[in-house]
């Protein structure tokens, strides 16, 4: 056990200088995104979802959509895109669930009306 503990810090110190140089080389190649590239935060979808009665998923969507702009401004572009996609996913699931639920309800209502006749 003691031998392993002594060896590990040595390995890390050897590896560490390599990583920053690799990052610096990749840095300039990435084109800095302009404000126009900012992803749509899908807040519209999320709010429509809450107003159309699928509340838990819509609230998740709203909170995720709210993070997009601040993440983008702070330079975390990938995280911003990720949250935007998450917001879209949750809101669309909410809207789909709401629609499917109401269609099922109408179907059941029609069927039961037929059955009682």
């Amino acid at each position, binding site marked *: 056990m003691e031998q392993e503990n002594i060896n590990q810090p040595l390995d890390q110190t050897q590896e560490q200088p390599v990583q920053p140089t690799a990052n610096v080389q990749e840095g300039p190649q990435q084109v800095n995104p302009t404000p*126009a590239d900012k992803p*749509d*935060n899908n*807040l*519209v979808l999320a*709010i*429509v979802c*809450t*107003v*159309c*009665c*699928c*509340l838990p998923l819509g*609230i998740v969507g*709203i*909170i995720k*959509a*709210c993070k997009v*702009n*601040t993440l983008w401004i702070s330079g975390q572009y990938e995280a911003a895109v990720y949250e935007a996609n998450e917001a879209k996913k949750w809101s669309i699931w909410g809207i789909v*669930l*709401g*629609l*499917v*639920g*109401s*269609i*099922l*309800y*109408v179907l059941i*209502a029609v069927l039961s009306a037929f059955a009682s006749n």
Partner: protein
Amino acid sequence: MSLLQFCRHLPATKYLVLLLAAVAMVLLLAFNPENFWFWPKCPFKLLTGLDCPACGIQRFAHAALNGHFAAACRYNYFLLYALPYTFLVVLAYYLPRGRFKQRLANVVEGKFAVYLYVALFSLWFVVRNIMKI
């Protein structure tokens, strides 16, 4: 950018959404949701028996579109705040790029506005189910 140019550059999906909203409004104006079976029912209410924060939106729209505004408010007071806010969010989404869109979006999509909406939404959900309003 003129209005005509703006309309020309609006993508088809945005037109489709506007069209659907217009159709829904006309249907809500003409057919009272309380009397016709084909209006969608809230799946949340069917499952849990609770009124969700937006429950009453169809009756609200029917009454408001027919000019009975006070009666509309009685169906759901929260919509007095939620619908204008939704309208502003949608407006910020539809506006062409520019300073006005940016300023509106900064307010409407800002942390304060969003968390206020979430907080009031949750509060209204609890209050309306306790007080049966």
